[in-house]
């Protein structure tokens, strides 16, 4: 149950403009139900190489060109997605490449290709048509040569030569368990075609590309979004939901960069944690990774060689939120090891301040995350409430860290990151400076109306 969209690569929120054709020169077809129907219309047409799909009007516009055609350019678009036929935009070949319609025009030996419409310097019997795609002087495979696309050359002493275009399988290799694999193989190891990630048929699934932006769930290419042992895909075979793909492993596995691994704390999701914590946050001992009891699992150390699944140490082999393990308690299959401390991810502080830093007059001008500070006198990206004129005593110079509002947590600045109005600076409290203790007798507590709740428990709530 393959979808016609399987022949297309999508660029979300993108419009293809042709500089020599007015935007409206190609008509829109509004009577389509969805992008799949558009693909169904475009796919059999030899002069349809791509189409726009308008996500709000649900109309589609068939196009005879792609982003690699002359006089075209890609443009961000709020309404359109651009679907292009894979054969025209992929830079690798499937099988022997008879379907290749890319624009490579030099041979593996570096010789320029002769235009197919020319009979000189090398005479031949091919005549370019829409069907055989013998366009310009692009590498093509009109005779099904097992070595893939080739061309006649402009060198009369070399009649023709292969272009050496890699197969999609060889063009990208798998490192570790393939979480980062972004190749263009769309077949499984048994040769079944993959289902698109942005479709829910024939197999519904949770991996919506828009929700997993970091997993590269493009079109129907093999990917590994869930920490499986290697890239896989859902298949177009209704009888087989998902299957691994047969992809080459990269050469020698370079060990993880030393700075990416941590022993006593974890950074980010803890994928680089290599410490020896071996209990869960609840104190339950972890199960050994090379054991299958009390919990059977598929994380065999040998299949995750680069994840260091030694003994029963907390690890994160599948991109979860934090290091975790299977537990030794039968009733609790897995648990996180949140008791492992997070590594501080602040940049190194470059200066120090006294008290709350109200008198700090240094020139540090970046936040603790390393983001450059906004100038106090600037109005973008953030409209400041504190300006050099509104609080002259604070000496708000340039974009230096200051503390114009007496913030107890130290000097801060507005940031140049549009998403972060303000942040504290790459500064630390001077060693000799101890903050006043707050553990004094509590003072009075003025409250608003919050903090109220219905306190009596209604047993019927247990009944759905």
């Amino acid at each position: 149950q393959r979808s016609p969209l399987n022949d297309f690569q999508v660029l979300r929120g993108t419009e293809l403009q042709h500089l020599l054709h007015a935007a409206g020169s190609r008509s829109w077809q509004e009577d389509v139900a969805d992008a799949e129907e558009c693909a169904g219309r475009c796919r059999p047409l030899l002069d349809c190489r791509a189409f726009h799909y308008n996500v709000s009007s649900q109309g589609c516009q068939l196009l005879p060109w792609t982003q690699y055609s002359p006089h075209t350019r890609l443009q961000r678009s709020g309404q359109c997605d651009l679907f292009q036929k894979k054969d025209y935009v992929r830079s690798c070949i499937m099988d022997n490449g008879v379907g290749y319609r890319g624009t490579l025009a030099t041979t593996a030996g570096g010789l320029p290709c002769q235009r197919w419409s020319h009979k000189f310097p090398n005479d031949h019997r091919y005549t370019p048509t829409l069907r055989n795609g013998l366009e310009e002087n692009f590498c093509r495979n009109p005779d099904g040569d097992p070595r893939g696309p080739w061309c006649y050359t402009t060198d009369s002493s070399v009649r023709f030569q292969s272009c050496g275009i890699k197969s999609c399988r060889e063009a990208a290799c798998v490192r570790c368990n393939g979480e980062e694999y972004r190749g263009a193989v769309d077949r499984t190891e048994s040769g079944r075609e993959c289902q698109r990630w942005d479709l829910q048929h024939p197999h519904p699934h949770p991996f919506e590309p828009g929700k997993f932006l970091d997993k590269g769930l493009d079109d129907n290419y093999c990917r590994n979004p869930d920490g499986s042992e290697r890239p896989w895909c859902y298949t177009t075979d209704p009888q087989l939901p998902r299957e691994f793909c047969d992809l080459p492993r990269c050469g020698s596995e370079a060990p993880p960069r030393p700075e990416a691994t941590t022993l006593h704390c974890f950074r980010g999701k803890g994928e680089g944690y290599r410490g020896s914590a071996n209990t869960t946050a609840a104190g339950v001992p972890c199960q050994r990774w090379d054991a299958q009891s009390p919990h059977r699992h598929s994380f065999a150390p040998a299949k995750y060689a680069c994840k260091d699944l030694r003994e029963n140490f907390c690890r994160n082999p599948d991109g979860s939120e934090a290091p975790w393990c299977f537990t030794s308690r039968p009733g609790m299959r897995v648990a996180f090891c949140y008791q492992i401390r997070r590594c501080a991810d602040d940049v190194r502080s470059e200066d120090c301040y006294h008290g709350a830093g109200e008198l700090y007059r240094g020139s540090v001008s970046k936040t603790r995350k390393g983001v450059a500070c906004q100038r106090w006198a600037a109005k973008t990206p953030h409209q400041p409430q504190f300006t050099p004129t509104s609080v002259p005593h604070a000496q708000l110079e340039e974009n230096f860290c200051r503390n114009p509002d007496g913030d107890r947590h130290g000097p801060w600045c507005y940031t140049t990151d549009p998403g972060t109005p303000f942040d504290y600076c790459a500064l630390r409290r001077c060693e000799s400076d101890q903050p006043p203790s707050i553990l004094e007798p509590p003072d009075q507590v003025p409250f608003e109306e919050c903090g109220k709740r219905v306190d009596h428990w209604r047993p019927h709530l247990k009944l759905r």
Partner: protein
Amino acid sequence: VVGGQPGNSPWTVSLRNRQGQHFCGGSLVKEQWVLTARQCFSSCHAPLVGYEVWLGTLFHNPQPGEPGLQRVPVTKMVCGPSGSQLVLLKLERPAALNQRVALICLPPEQYVVPPGTKCEIAGWGETKGTGDDTVLNVASLRVISNQECNVKHRGRVQESEMCTEGPLAPVGACEGDYGGPLACFTLDCWVLEGIIIPNRVCARPRWPAVFTRVSVFVDWIHKVLRLD
């Protein structure tokens, strides 16, 4: 929550990841803002697409369409001052307040909860078999001074943290509760005095539990809301 009882805590929210799984608690401090623990997120700039806050339900796995359930996407995360172990989450839209969803008060700046104050924690986290895993559990704990707490914790508890006593029976927060509230009843109001953060073990009998002291960071909370 270990050693708790099914209960009601309308300011306690459930943080849900992209697969819709509960992974941490949080406290509704403004209609559009939830305070939770830094530990729950991989970084201050983690992509938030697909993360949601669920409010208005007592059930760990509420059915779609359950009356009162509110599912609000998280659009922004602001990390607290260094050492606070806190994160503020901004919601895509304000939560609708009703009998099942309420705000919790913030304490005055630098307020120190008197030892002996009755407080409670709430969450959908690990119960270690002591409670009902399918609903929100609430447990009562009593505040002790940092001085007393540091006896057992050998001076490691900071002033920006606070402690509750370790009862004889195992009672306390555990995995899945992090980010949730330590709410204390003061002057006829529930006040968010502490945030549940990971301790070395859960609910260890006779062992004081450590929380982030919210009153130390109330000024930061107000500033984030004001400058947003």
